[in-house]
């Protein structure tokens, strides 16, 4: 599969009477957005707000973040969820509005929705402190079940991103990159002297608000399978979960999967990037055993010399991470793990809930239990009402002036376990 990914650099978002992109500025008609979002009768109201880097603004509780993109050819964005499921995505042409995001927020679904600070001490930990954000503050109908509200919020974000993306389909990109992965034998033959590297992408699938979708299929229901890396750039995977905010692989992060981006940078130089093995993180032991066996089988079937493995979430998925690591290494493929750590507030507990001897190479994404003082902000998009019960907060952590103390866990994607950030932890 070969994909041409054009990037339109967005410097700012402005409200306007029409929605369009011009000279690196995304103009948004908030009435259009509101109308689109409120097509869903599960949602009662939607307020559209803009948050820019450097502003004294806090967005919370954040559910998902999505970069607007549009397919020029080769299928439609977010197949099986927004776009048609066929043809498959990952080839043709795609345009991305680089530098801006759609952020869904509003009253809490579970406990696991996070904070984005556009400035101040928490900003360096959050990738979305650096993007211009179009925020949808959602108001659900009374009495909605939590998973119904979650789905309505998820669809509102994806529909908005898709709508904005489509308005930019005639804009000339500032930069175009081409990514290509060939069918298995051809790809192996292209760089016969380089080590064959794969990526085992563990999708969050614990259920009960912890779900991910591949072409619209709930990841709980998949068995490990092969994915062309370019499919992910077109929204083949979308987030549908409320895992701990620091760990959340937002839809934006799927579109910008750092392992795939960096493997392509090394492709043809010191590695031969063969593709992605998708697997899940189900809670049943039989699923864990079956799927880690299948992952190891796919690695040896593809003749991989080495793999990178990432997880989403922590605790229970650590067992999947370790089972995959152990079985893949024993099947003869070398493993490097990428994950974050939760060693307690004092940093002295074990970082992971499971270990294995084969896990001798690990790239740390930082530890999420360290605490930080979040200053009061001039403007709150959403509500701070739930800070004390959001993951990373605690009873009494919030002060009357709106400032609070919390673990880094409360910041969206601060320790995301796929290596997107530069944060790491080391032993002292």
């Amino acid at each position, binding site marked *: 599969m070969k994909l041409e990914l054009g990037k339109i650099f967005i410097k700012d978002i402005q409200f306007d009477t029409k929605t369009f992109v011009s000279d690196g500025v995304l103009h948004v008609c908030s009435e259009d957005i509101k109308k689109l979002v409120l097509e869903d009768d599960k949602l009662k109201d939607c307020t559209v707000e803009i948050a820019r880097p450097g502003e004294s603004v806090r967005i919370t509780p954040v559910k998902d973040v999505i970069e607007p993109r549009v397919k020029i050819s080769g299928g439609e964005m977010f197949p099986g969820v927004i776009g048609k499921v066929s043809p498959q995505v990952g080839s043709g042409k795609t345009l991305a509005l680089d530098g801006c995001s759609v952020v869904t927020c509003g009253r809490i679904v*579970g*406990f*696991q929705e996070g904070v984005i600070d556009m400035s101040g001490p928490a900003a*360096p930990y959050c990738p979305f402190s650096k993007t211009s954000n179009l925020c949808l503050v959602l108001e659900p109908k009374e009495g909605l079940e*939590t*998973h119904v509200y979650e789905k309505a919020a998820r669809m509102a974000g994806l529909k908005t991103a898709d709508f904005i993306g489509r308005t930019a389909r005639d804009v000339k990109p500032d930069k175009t990159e081409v990514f290509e992965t060939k069918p298995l034998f051809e790809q192996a033959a292209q760089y016969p002297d380089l*080590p064959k*590297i794969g990526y085992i992408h563990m999708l969050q699938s*614990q259920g*009960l608000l912890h779900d991910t979708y591949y072409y619209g299929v709930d990841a709980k229901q998949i068995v490990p399978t092969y994915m062309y890396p370019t499919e992910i750039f077109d929204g083949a995977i979308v987030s549908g979960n409320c895992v701990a905010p620091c760990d959340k692989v937002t839809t934006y992060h799927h579109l910008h999967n750092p*392992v795939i981006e*960096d*493997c392509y*940078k*090394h492709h043809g130089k*010191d*590695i031969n990037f063969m593709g992605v093995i998708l697997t899940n993180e189900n809670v049943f032991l039989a699923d864990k055993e079956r799927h880690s066996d299948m992952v190891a089988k796919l690695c040896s079937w593809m003749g991989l*010399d*080495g*793999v*990178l493995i990432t997880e989403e979430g922590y*605790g229970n998925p650590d067992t999947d991470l370790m089972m995959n690591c152990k079985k893949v290494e024993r099947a003869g493929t*070398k493993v*490097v*793990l*990428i994950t974050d*750590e*939760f060693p*307690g*507030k004092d*940093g*002295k*507990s*074990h*970082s*992971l809930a499971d270990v*294995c001897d084969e*896990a*001798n*190479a*690990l*790239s*740390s994404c930082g*530890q999420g*239990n*360290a605490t930080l003082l979040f200053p009061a902000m001039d403007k709150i998009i959403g509500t701070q009402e739930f800070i004390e*019960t959001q993951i*990373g907060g605690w009873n009494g952590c919030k002060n009357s002036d709106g400032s609070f103390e919390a*673990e*880094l866990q409360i910041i969206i994607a601060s320790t995301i376990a*796929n*290596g*997107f*950030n*530069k944060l*790491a*932890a*080391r*032993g*002292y």
Partner: protein
Amino acid sequence: MAKYKIVHYINQFFAGIGGEEKADWEPEVREGAVGPGLGLSAALGSDYEIAATVICGDNYFGENLDKATDTLIAMIGKYKPDVFIAGPAFNAGRYGVACGTICKAVEERLGIPVLTGMYEENPGADMFRKDLIIVRTPNSSAGMRKVLPVLASLIRKMAEKQEILGPDEEGYLERGIRINYFTEERGSERAIQMLVKKLKGEPFKTDLIMPKFDRVDPAAPIKDIRKARIAVVTSGGIIPTGNPDHIESSNATKWGKYDLTGMDRMSPDDFTSIHGGYDRQFAIANPNVVVPLDALRELEKAGEFGELANYFYTTTGTGTATASAAKFGTEIGKQLIDDHVDGVILVST
């Protein structure tokens, strides 16, 4: 006059009192530097003064732990030191344990920075490395000259409240405390570089060396379930409505013990879930899905097991630090034993 005051702890051997035959030497204090303190004083320079040296025999300390600690703390406190140092103990086991014990006590009770030095395999190193900065030393006092400048540098940083860097930079044993920092390249790029090195067979450095986990052997099976007293313990976050003990939704630091006497089922009016790791909607509507009191009462009535204990024990099991989990297990276990419980249903979520 020196700007900073140090008090130094050494054993009978380094004080020149004697070897094994004098190991029962009782605590004493001497003004100024003694033994290794002389070299340390020279390494520290004129801004620093070893105001006093406290001395204790290794056996005396080991056999009179509390008394020796109390006596020594009183002696040390009088000098109001800026930094306290013990040893270095090299590979002397009892001396190492004494250095660790007194350092920890001084830090806790006098609230001043403390420092010691040991060989990595000294049993005192394992006991105290998580709590103290222990300078890495060779295995015998022949290495004293190498160690003194390292100790001096750390004492200066502690006294002058400068940032103490990592174990490799400063020469201490890693305490196992995980601290964040920002790297030059993102995690995915560093992982690819690590993988390329691993494949070539070149040396690489993992960010996290896998710890050894405690493995607990399963208890012996219950001999007669029809007579057994059964209790429920859960990490599913079911608590009385209102959360009287303020148990956290994630990374819990507490557990609760709540009465089930006379109840046939968990009523949603009395109990709820504060667990931060799953969709609580079903557990809030019916807490029996996590604490299966309804089913247990039926089985109890049918004589399937002896009786249900009156209390259940609960915490939130999501993002819980392993140190907290181990502590909860020990504390709850003790209560279960005291309550003569024969078996436990451990409900996770």
